[in-house]
Each structure stands twice: as C-alpha cells, then as structure tokens.
C-alpha cells in the first residue's frame, strides 16, 4: 500500500495534482510542488469556491490548505473513486488563475514585538517541555529566527514583518487562525517549527513556522516561533462589534498589514477591544492576481538573491 492514490500531470496553467489517502473518510489533494508559490493557493481558492457552488453529494467539506484541499466524505454516499472523479471535474472547470480578481479586505493590525506574553509562552516551554532547544535564547525565539534567516538583527526581522502585506491563504488550526504568506517575495523569511510543540500560547500571539505567519486566536498549543502580539482576531462573545456577524476577523483572501506599537500601547488597545472602543482598521478592497504577478516579477531577481543568502544561513543553523 502507498499513500499516493492517484496523480494528474500539469496541464496548461493547471498545476500537477496528487491524491493522497488520509484514512477511510478523507483524501488530501495536493497541487504543484512544495514551494512558496501563491499561484497554487489562488488555484485552491478557485477550486474551493467551485465546490461550494456545485456541491458534491457525500462530500462533507473541502477544507483548504496552502497548496492542498482535504476532502472529508461519507463513504456510504460517495466512494473514493467517485469522489476523485467529481473533484477531477472541478479541476477541469478551472480557467487560469492569472486573471482572477478576488474580493480582499486590507486589515491593519498593531503589533508589539518581543512582548511579555510571548516570552512567557517560551519560558513555560523551556521550563516544562524542552530546556535546551536551539530555538530558545533568553526565553525568546526572536534571535533564532534572525540567525536562521541570516538577518542583520532584530530590527531587520521586524522590518520584514511590517514591510509587506500578508495574504491569508486559509483559516484553520483553531477557530479563526489565519495562515498568512508575504505578498512581497523579498520579505519571505522561513524557520523550522518547534520540536516538540508548546502546550500553551497566549491569545493574540504572532509567530512564524516555515514561511507562514499566524496569529493565535485563542489560548492554544502551538508550534510556531513567536515574535510578538496583536489584538484579538476571534471573539465568540462579540464583545466588540467587529465580531457581531462572524466571530472570525480575518477571512481567507484578506490581507493583513502590521504596524509596530509599544507593549503598553498594545495592552491599551486590547482593553479597548473588550470595551468596544477600539477601531479596527479595515479597508474593503480587491486583489488582482495579474497585478500581484507583475509586482512579484519586478522584484524577482532581488528576492532570489535574498533567498539564497537566507538558505545559506539556514544550512548553518541548528534545527530543533
């Protein structure tokens, strides 16, 4: 037996597709190669939308990933083969993602770098789970992220985080956690995840795992390297009106921009959220894949040079 059930070669603008078994109720569909290629995510977004508009009986849900879709199905209603046939049809119906224009809001969030709650999560991990982890220095992951990417120092890391818009590729982990990737490829930093994971992370903590930046929506376990904290992005009690229609702030296809603040300013903002006084900065906007690709192409050479330097630094750095 093997994990791979089926393969479809790339065709035109459509990426190669691999169907992988994931138990008796799930199939994982992977697109393209394991690379930080946002076009793959745009393709996932388009297929997800297609399946929502053309429901497949017995398909409980198609849950997206960065470059994948997890198909949860009821085998009594649709068997694996019929499921794959139905999803193949959704793939065939796709046109090139390069001309897509998607609804996308731009959300500006404050961030306090190296805040005390993130340090507390790291400290607890060092105390109770793994003391001598290479990704921990002085109860912080920040210097490890800096070293792994060969950055000149903490300020260079903070500039990488605040210097780009972050694309929310999809939502998951715990309710409302955005999995975000940099829209400026020059800002693509990467870092290994924890080994093993933390059992506690503060709500609002911001971290990075691989090339992906996430905001912890609730107190949760976690495996990302932490570097800061922001305001709440999930509230089922809707204490702030921004959560009135949906407890989740950041939707797939939204973009986030981080603005640095001091920890005192952040704590004040967090108090204001609870009292419904804080002003979330949200602009309704659109996202044009054509424009994105044009901008990415302009800086490609520079991004490639930066990436090579970062990969060289990574090769010199211990992995947890």
């Amino acid at each position, binding site marked *: *037996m*093997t*994990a*791979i059930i089926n393969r479809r070669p790339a065709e035109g603008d459509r990426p190669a597709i691999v169907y*992988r*078994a*994931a*138990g*008796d*109720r*799930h199939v*994982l569909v992977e697109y393209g190669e*394991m*690379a*930080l290629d946002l076009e793959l995510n745009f393709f996932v977004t388009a297929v997800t939308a297609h399946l929502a508009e053309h429901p497949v009986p017995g398909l*409980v*849900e198609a*849950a*997206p*990933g*960065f*470059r*994948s879709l*997890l198909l*949860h199905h009821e*085998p009594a209603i649709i068997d694996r083969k019929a499921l794959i046939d139905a999803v193949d049809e959704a793939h065939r119906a796709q046109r090139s993602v390069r001309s897509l224009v998607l609804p996308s809001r731009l959300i500006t969030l404050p961030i306090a770098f190296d805040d005390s709650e993130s340090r507390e999560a790291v400290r607890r991990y060092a105390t109770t789970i793994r003391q001598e982890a290479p990704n921990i220095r002085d109860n912080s992951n920040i210097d490890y992220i800096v070293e*792994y990417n060969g950055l000149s120092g903490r300020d260079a890391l903070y500039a990488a985080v605040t210097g780009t818009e972050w694309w929310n*590729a*999809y*939502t*998951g*982990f*715990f*309710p*409302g*956690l955005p*999995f975000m990737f940099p829209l400026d490829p020059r800002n693509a930093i*990467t*870092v*290994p*995840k*924890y*080994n*093993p*994971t933390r*059992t506690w992370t503060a709500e609002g903590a911001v971290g990075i*795992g*691989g*090339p*992906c930046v996430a905001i912890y*929506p*609730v107190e*949760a*376990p976690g*495996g990302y390297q932490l570097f800061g904290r922001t305001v709440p992005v999930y509230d*089922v009690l809707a204490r702030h009106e921004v959560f009135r229609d949906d407890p*989740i702030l950041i939707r797939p296809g939204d973009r986030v921009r981080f603005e640095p603040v001091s920890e005192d300013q952040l704590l004040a903002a967090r108090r204001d959220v609870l009292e419904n006084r804080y002003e979330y900065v949200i602009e309704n906007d659109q996202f044009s894949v054509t424009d994105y690709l044009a901008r990415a192409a302009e800086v490609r050479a520079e991004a490639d040079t930066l990436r090579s330097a970062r990969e060289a630094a990574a090769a010199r*750095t211990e*992995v*947890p």
Partner: protein
Amino acid sequence: MTDSHAVFDIVMPGLQTLVQDYPGRRGLQSKGFFPSGPMDHVSFRIANALVGNEPGAPALEIPMGRLTLRALAETWVAVTGAEGSGLRLNSRPMPLGETVRVVPGDEIACSIVKGPGFRLYLAVAGGIDVPMVMGSRATYTMGGIGGVEGRALVKGDVLRARAVTAPPPRLRVPASLRPALANLWEVEVMRGPHADPDFLTEQDWKDLVGREWKVDLNSNRVGTRLESHRFQWARPSGGVAGGHPSNVLDGSYPIGGINTNGDVPVILGPDGPTAGGFTVIAAVVQAGLWKVGQLRPGRDLIRFREVSLDEALALAARVDYTTDPHHYEEL
C-alpha cells in the same frame, strides 16, 4: 423551553464533564473548528440507544469519573464506557450498559475510573437540552461554544432534558456487542498522506506499526500524545516549510490523523487543531476512533494495525451494528 424539564442537579462535576452530541459541529473545518463531539462515539451512541434517543442526542462525556448528580425528575438513564468507576445509584452498584429508571432525589455517582477505559457516557431520555450553536450542541471549550455556556460542568449546574411521551423499553447491551476495553490497545490505522514513500521510509512505517506506543500523560480532547521517536525520514529536511523533515507547507488535517510534531506523534482529537504544518503519517480509521477516547493517559499502550480501505469500511459497519438497539436484550 416548555418541552423540556430539569432532570439533574450537578453535585460534583468531575474533572471535565461535557455535554456532547454526535457527529458534532461538522463542515466548519475551513473556519478552524473540528467537530467536537464524544471522543468515544460508540459508547456515546450506545448510551443514547438504551434510553430511546437518536444515537447522536446530547449526552454527557465524563473523563476519569468522579461525577455525582441528583435526579430532579422521574426519567431513564444509561451509563456506558469505562469500567472500574464504582458506579452506583443511591449507594448501590449500578450496571453499565442498561436502561435504568430514576426518580427525584436519586443520586448517581462514580469514583475515579480505575479502568480499563477512561471515559464514561451518561445519556438521559429525551437528550440534554442545551442551545444549538453553529449547527451543534457539542461543547468546544477552546472556542467557548456549545453545551453549557461553552464550558465544562460545574457544581450547581442544573441540566434539562427534552420531554419524552412514553418510557423507553428497558434494554441491556449483550456482552458480544460491548466495546472491548483494554490496557494494551490495537488501533486500526490507514496510511496518512505523508507516509512512505516520499515522506517516511518503508522502515519508518514498519516502526510505526511494529512497536508499542505509550500514551503520554499530557493527552486530552485536543490530541493524544505518544512518545518521542526519531524516524529516519525519506527526505533530509522540510525545505521551505522548515528544516525538520516533519515540516510541510501548512494544510488541513483529518480528524484521527497521526500528526508528527517534530519527533512526537500526536493523534488529533475532536477538539484538535484543524490544520498546520506537520506531516500526517497515518490516520486512525472511523471504526477505531472510539478507542482513542478510552486510552488512559500516562498508562495505556497502543499498537497500530494497518487495515485496507475495504476492511476499514467493514469494521465501521460492524461498529454501527453495535449501536442499534434492535440487537439489545429486553429486560
């Protein structure tokens, strides 16, 4: 609430007693919600069947025991799941797996579960009446929703049940249909999306299914942690997803997936993370998931057995058969 009545007063809430329903809050994985619901869905459904409910009706999940409740009305209850809890009705032993009538003032109590097994389920005729939240009544404590105010029960909670028109028939689950509890468990798995050949080596897979795994004390509804194990891995690194070969570009996880957090395998539970950037090397099949709910943290051992898709589906049908009250004995 005219069609419901107060049935229980919680005298002692236990460690983390939760109202659950089955199959829980489905179809919201893309918002970050796993379904919640009972960890042992078989014992849960059997308890409901014994009191004439739909198999998925809201009922209690009682990890580790230590619950005491007082009946506030005449009704019918059934308790299933872990053994060795000293379950009693008014200080007299109360049977597992049977319909039991209670009257106002009756006290149902259990002590700390000695095992085998870890979770008890208590169903009441009509099903526990709690509000529907996002399509389900299941409690999800991390998200703060479902059940009683999104939290575990506390002393003094009063639970209501939906009214029933007639007493349910008194039933008993025959021994042949009772889930077999153990201390060394054989859990059925299939290969996960990141098994061999491109993530694990063939030898890694043999290691996974060939050895006994101890259940870590730090296990709960989010995940069941196993011991740390260095797999060989078929690739030297996770590349852009992070230096460790267990790292992948983030994607959605299957419930019951065996997720490698670096070197520590974790079986994803019903409140678990719905997505992330670690490989899923295997998945517990539907028919085997209930066993994960009965594992005793810090003590029990697991052996994984690989099954084919056809065997997994046949086993699921067999599990469904045990939850059908037509096959129970009438008392």
